[in-house]
Structure formats: C-alpha cells, structure tokens
C-alpha cells in the first residue's frame, strides 16, 4: 500500500493507505476529522469541501494518495489562534445555516471564492458557490454572510496594510 504524508489542520500524518481510499474517508475514518461530512456520491453537493494547498476541493473526489505532500485545511482547522474565521462569524451572524450539514463545505468554498475575488457581487457569490448545495436556507443568508465576510476581510486587510488603506 502506498505511503502518504499529509498535513491536516497543522498536524502531519503518515499512513499506508489503499490507493482507492478517498480523501474524505481518510479524513473521517482514519484521522477522526469528522467535521467534514459526506452528502452525495457524485461530486454534486460539496458538503465535503476542504482546502488543499489553499484551494477548495471536494474531498470525495480526491484520492488520499493525491493529497500526499499537501496541506489540507478542514472546517476544524479554519479558526486561527482561537479566533473564528470571519466567514464562520458571518455565517453565524447572518443565520446562513440551519441544519448545518452543508456548512463546512459552504464556508470553505466561500473562503476560496474570496481569495479569488475579494469583493464579489451577489451574482458572483451565487455563481461561485454553485458547486455547494444547501437544502435549508434558500441561499439568501449565505449570500449575505459571504458579502459581510468580504467586507470585514477587506477592512481588516486595509487596516493592516497601509498601502491598501490609501487606495
């Protein structure tokens, strides 16, 4: 069995895995990272979205061996230094979740969206999250939450970067 080395939420794991093992099952069944849920078997729902080397991937369509050598961030590792990520906070404040099952994937996909486009329009947010399904919210508050997080992150980036503050 191939040996892989993957850093997940700041901790490096070395394991011998079956080549067919999905990353999401590696996270859940091997590492106990059960904050990442599974919602489908056809790569449609996005509930299992994680960040792999900073980019969002659906961990049900990545093999664990493909993650060898990479750094994975799950919803459990998104908060830094005990501080919730602005996207987590804004999902809470805007009531952008109900059952919460899609929420880990939705939050991680949204953070990746803002990395590409720090100030998206509502339509760009909706298009950017097209690969993540939510059955509870009707998406309206998710759009608001991403907008709010974008504003907050732009503001705090401006506050810490004097060059941007002048722009």
């Amino acid at each position, binding site marked *: 069995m191939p040996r892989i080395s993957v850093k997940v939420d700041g901790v490096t794991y070395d394991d011998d895995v*079956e080549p*067919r*093992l999905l990353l999401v*099952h590696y996270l*859940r*069944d091997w590492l*106990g*990272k*059960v*904050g*990442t*849920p*599974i*919602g*489908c*078997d*056809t790569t*449609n*729902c996005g*509930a299992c979205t994680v960040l792999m080397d900073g980019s969002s991937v659906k961990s049900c369509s990545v093999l664990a061996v493909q993650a060898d050598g990479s750094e994975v961030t*799950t*919803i*459990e590792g*998104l*908060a830094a230094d005990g501080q*919730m990520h602005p996207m*987590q906070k804004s*999902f*809470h*404040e805007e*009531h952008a*979740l*109900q*059952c*919460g*099952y*899609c*929420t*880990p994937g939705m*939050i991680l996909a949204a953070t990746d969206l803002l990395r590409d486009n720090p100030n998206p329009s*509502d*339509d760009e*947010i*909706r*298009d950017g*999250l*097209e*690969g*993540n*399904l*939510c*059955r*509870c*919210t*009707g*998406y*309206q*508050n*998710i*759009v608001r939450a991403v907008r709010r997080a974008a504003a907050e992150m732009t503001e705090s980036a401006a506050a810490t970067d004097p060059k941007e503050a002048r722009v």
Partner: protein
Amino acid sequence: MTEQAQATPGAAKEIGARRARKEDARLITGQTRWTDSIQVPGLLQMAVLRSPMAHARITRIDVSPALDRPGVLAAFSGRDFADEQGSLPCAWPVTEDMAQPPNPPLAVDEVRYAGDAVAVVVARDRYSAADALEAIEIDYEPLPPVLDLEEALADGAPLVHSDLGTNKCYDFHMPAGDYQAARDRAQAEGGIVMKRRYLQQRLQPSAMEPRAVVVEPIAAAGEFTLYSATQIPHILRLLLAMTTGVPEHKIRVVAPDVGGGFGSKLNLYAEESIALLVARRLGRPVKWTESRSENYQATIHGRGQIQDIEVAATREGRLLGLKVSLVADMGAYLQLITPGVPLLGAFMYPGIYKMDAYDFSCTGVFTTKTPTDAYRGAGRPEATYAIERAMDDLAQELGIDPIELRRQNWIRHEEFPFDTIAGLTYDSGNYEAATDEALRLFGYEELRREQAERRDRGDPVQLGIGISIYTEMCGIAPSRVLGSLSFGGGGWEYASVRMLPTGKVEVVTGASPHGQGHDTTFSQIVADALGVPFDDVELIHGDTKSSHKGLDTYGSRSLAVGGIAITQACGRVIEKARKVAAHLLEAADTDIEFSGGTFRVRGAPESAKTIQEVVLATHLAHDMPEGVEPSLDADATFDPENFSFPHGSHLVAAEVDTQTGFTKIRSYVAVDDCGRVINPLVVEGQVVGGIAQGLAQALYEEATYDADGNLTSGTLADYLVPAAPDVPEITMARTETPATTNPLGVKGIGEAGTIGSTPAVVNAIVDALRHLGVDDVDMPCTPERVWRAIQESSAASA
C-alpha cells in the same frame, strides 16, 4: 405590523429579538456529531444489497460467497430474518377497509421497487462491506412493473401485491354540504363549472445528510442504544419496540445532530430495524450509512398525485362549490403515514375561501416505486397548489382580476374565528392586511402595465404575475382530532424545566430539532418566562434517556405545541418559587408579584428576592415553608385545542423567454403571518428556505422512472436540487395576527413557505403565456416543457 402581539406578563425582552442561534457554534466549527461520525468500540459496518429491478420474484439467493471476502463477518438475506423481522408499521389506516400489505424490512420472496433491500453484509470497514455485496448470488424472475397511477387501477392491470387482488389501497370520501346542488345552481344561474387536472410530480426530499444508523447492543442485558439520523427518536423507540419485540424500556434512541429532514426522516425505516436485528444476532455494534444514490431509492418520496378539480361559481365569481378527486401514489408499501398524506390536504383545498359545498375523494394506489410519505407540507402544498392554480384559472375564465376574485371569496378578518366548509375552525387571520402589504411591496399595478406593454409589442420575453394566497393547518395537533381521523398517535408535547442551584436552567423538550433552531427559540421563551439570561438556558432533546417523553418534530409543531409545553412548565416553576419567595420575604403568597426574574412584595418593592436566590434557597432547603417540597422543577404536557393556521400572500413576477422556454424569477414578494414571532431571524430563515423548496418543485425537481421502473433521477447529478444561482432573492415582510388558541399567540412556520410558493411560481409562468393560448404547464416547468407548451398551443391555434 398590523396588530400588536398580545401582552404577556413580564417584559418581553427576548421574545421578538433577532437572536443569532446558539446551535451555530458547533456547526460552523465542525464539532458536530452526525450519526455517521459516531464511533463505538468494536463497531462493524453494514452495507445493503438492493434490488436492481422494479418488480421481481427472488428465485434464489445465496449470501455465503460474501463471507469469503476479506473483512466480512456476516451476511444475511431476508430469509435469515423472515421469522423475526416483522413488518414496518403504518400508523394511519385511513379507512376501515384500507389494504395494508406486509412491508418486510428485507424482502423475502418478492421485490417491489428498484432499491428494495434484499440482503446485508457486515464487515470490519465500509469498503469491505460494499465490495462483498457484489459476491452475493441472487436470481430474479422479472414481474411486470406498475408505474402509471390510472393504468394501475384498470381491470387486468399487473398487481404490485398479488394477494390483494387490486392495486387500490383505499377510497376515502369526505363530502361537506351539497356539491351537486352548488353545481346545479352555477349552471342554472349562468355561472361556471370549471374542470382542471393538475399533476403533482414525485419529489425526492433531499435532506443534505443522508440517513444513518448505529446500533450498540449490550447483548447480555438485551439492551440496545440506537443512534439515528431521525426526526422522531421517541416515536422510533416505540415503533422499534412494537416491531422487534425488544421491550421499550430496553431501547434507547438518540437523534444526535441531524442534517435536515423535511419529513423524510419521519419513519421507521428498514435499515433501522435490520441494523437492530443484526446487532442482536451478532452481539456487536453495527453502523449503516446511506449513500445519496441509496437515499434517492430507499428514503421516501413526496407528492405524486393526480388532482382532478371542479369549481362551481357564479358569473360574478362567488365560489359555490369545490370538488376534488385525487389519485395518490402510495409507492410499493405503506410507510408510517403514507396513506394519510392526502388527508392532511383534504382539509385545505378550500384554502382561504368561503363556499357552500365541498366534496373530497382520494384513491390511494400501489405502484412499483419507492414508497411516498410526508415531505415538507405533506398534503397541504398539493391542496394549496390546486386551489390557487384554480383561482387564477377561474379569474381568467370570468375575466376578473385574480386578486379581486380572491378578495371576493376570502374569509374577511372580522369573520374569524371561522368554521370552514372542510370542518376546521380557523382561529385568526388577516388576508387583507398581508395581501395589501404584498401588493405594495410588489408594485402590482406597475407590473400589470409592463405586462400589457410586453404583450402589445410582442416582446419575446413575456412577463407573468403569479399569485398565491395560502393558509395551512399545522402545529400537529389536537390528539382528539388525530384520533377522529384514525391516526395511530397523539399530538401533545412534553417539556420539563429543571432549576440548577446556580440559577441556570435545563429545559427538556420532546421536540427533536434537525436544523430549526429550537435551542435558540426555546431559550428565548424560557428567558422571558423565568426572567433569566438567554445564555443561562440549556436545551436537552433527542435522546430518550434524557428526554424521556415526546412526540418529536414534524408538521410545524415544535413551537406551537412544544413551545407552549415549555411555557406552561415555566409557569409551574414560578408558582412553586412564589411560595418559597413568600416564605423568605415573610409575606403571603398572594402578595408576591413576579416580574423580570424578581419576586417582590406588593407595595414594598424593596422587599425582593431574585429567582436565582429562591432557587438556591430551595436547593439548600434549610428554611422551606411548611409542607413544601424542596424542588422548583416542573413539567408540562400540552395538547392544543386546535391546529395553527399561518397564512401568507406570495406574489411572483416571472420573465418567460418564449423562444427558449427559460423562466427567470424577476421578483418574489412574500408577506407571511405566523402570529407572534419569537425570533424573526429564525422565522425568515424558515420562510425563505421553504420558498426555495416549493419553487424547486415548480421549476426543477422531479423523480423520474423509465419504462422498466428504474429510478432515472437517482443521483444529485440527475435530480436538480437548486444551487445558489437557481434561487432568486426573496423580499419578505410579515403581518402579525396572533393565534388565539395558545398563550404565546404563535403559529407554525416550518412548512408555510413551501406551501405558498409552488402555485405562485407556476401561476406566474402560465400568466406570462395565457395570451399565447397556454393555460397549463406541468411541473417542473423546465425550459423544454414551457417551450413545448408554447409550440403546442400555437400549433393548435394555427
């Protein structure tokens, strides 16, 4: 706000506040406990082999080759459990002679839908279990599928259950008033008798979390803990006891974090029963987790009805009578409330309108498809769809503005409480206020002008205005009414309030949340009732060991029934505490006032004790009044006197491209009235989420089968659950007409959005195309269907 909420004792600080939810912390950080995440020592994985055929006899089955596969501990077919598996229960025999065929968890001799479970493998891990399913040898002798509802009722049709001699499950008839006389009058007086057929496609509920179950046995003691992604831990425990023979007190059911339900987790499912039987047989804990493809085959579907509607009205548009004849698809077996779903609609076809006569009948039919059961709204969306489509069609036939036609017939606000023709008593409502507000926000007149302009200039993109003014019956329900409908359960809810020595409060509820926000809403109620901080309240639910009694969450009942039980239990705590406070303050009970968490002696406000002081004094019990027990804890069981009847006015402007058939929702205004609002944030979330699901029925979703009875919408790649770009921004507002049948004045809101939205959207599409000769488009109104409807009507008129 059209009316102020009723005043309640004490200041309402929390009730009405837009509190962000206390549930969120774990959900946004991944510190969740979904059933599939649960690990227990020695846990084995179960996988289920399903029938690939819609209808077939099992002529041979051999599970033993699976045992040779690596990691496999056991494999079983239906024959291995034939003597002990019993039949999955149906709790709603809607007529005395309803056909109720056996519903074995594992098929033994015959499979009756593609996805019917036939065997299981138990292995050390999920991959080994799934692999070994392929080794099971099974021979099927195909039988003809039964797919079309009307063909199924024809003489000589192939039978789903040959023992029954028919595919008919039941005929239910509910006449009220003299429909024939109403019809005759319409004809005699130059009025109208309008007939329509509307189709309710099958839907796949699609909760984001598929089902899962973990059963942990203590074999020596005959005890079982069952974790399940369920809406109904309490009912499930009872059903498991009734079907498996394990005594009720030896079963503990836990609903941990549950990722949505929408009615689809309101059942005893085959896999729950089988997992328990397997765990009992092996003496080992077992987990089964559904894949999405399994979810679409083996979790109940919703809707699935043919609706024949006849409306009799005067020439001026006054409704005289309504006749509804349904054919309802049961699917292959009766699940928990399969036959009763159309009956929940039976009372709602008259909707918000007055009329002289009503005649409802429904024929339930077996097909070789996945069983149907409750899906968000359960019967009421179907009813609302039919009446609100019919009102728009009638307005067209009579040349009356559809809003005016509704105004002419609806129950006016001063007429409440109102006894409807269907036999319900609507306690309160104000359709005028909600509709006026909706029209204002929508810009109705302006949009009508634009519609006319687009028609005049032959714009390829036509504008349609859709209207839906709904009410619905929820907060299920008064037990005596359920009994009168032959439903096999009650409708009360339980709560218990426990005062901890530090003044913190634990509240046990029998409601079982799966996304609704009970912890937050109920904490707000308790905070106001007891005068304690919101954060000092903790909810306990979803575990029959700690929340021992309850009837769970469905039918928008948790607040309107469960919330009242909590309110009553809080009231009892205060009454107990009043005695202790009086003793501590050396005053008579009758002189003690309670407000904002403090007991005061009337006329001597400086003489006071906070509730926390009284709680601690009671806990210490050093100085209790004579004959008073040292506890302030209290419980309550509330059985409502009536359903609750939220209502709302939904208006949709749709742009329909006549060249491509594509529909774009340009604006959607929803003014809903669910009585007094505890948490506007939560209510708005329920409304907009509900609208998205109803709109999805109108535009996107349909469970489809091929000619052999295979589900062809069996994955999320084939079944179009809308994504963010597919759902429009909803403009929401509220009116507040308090319920008069419960002390909080609240009405359920969990299903209202779904109930109101579907006809609003389809009415808008049809309205855009009426001048082209289109008077119906079947759901979902895909671009292809809309385009074809336009082509067919232009071909017909050419």
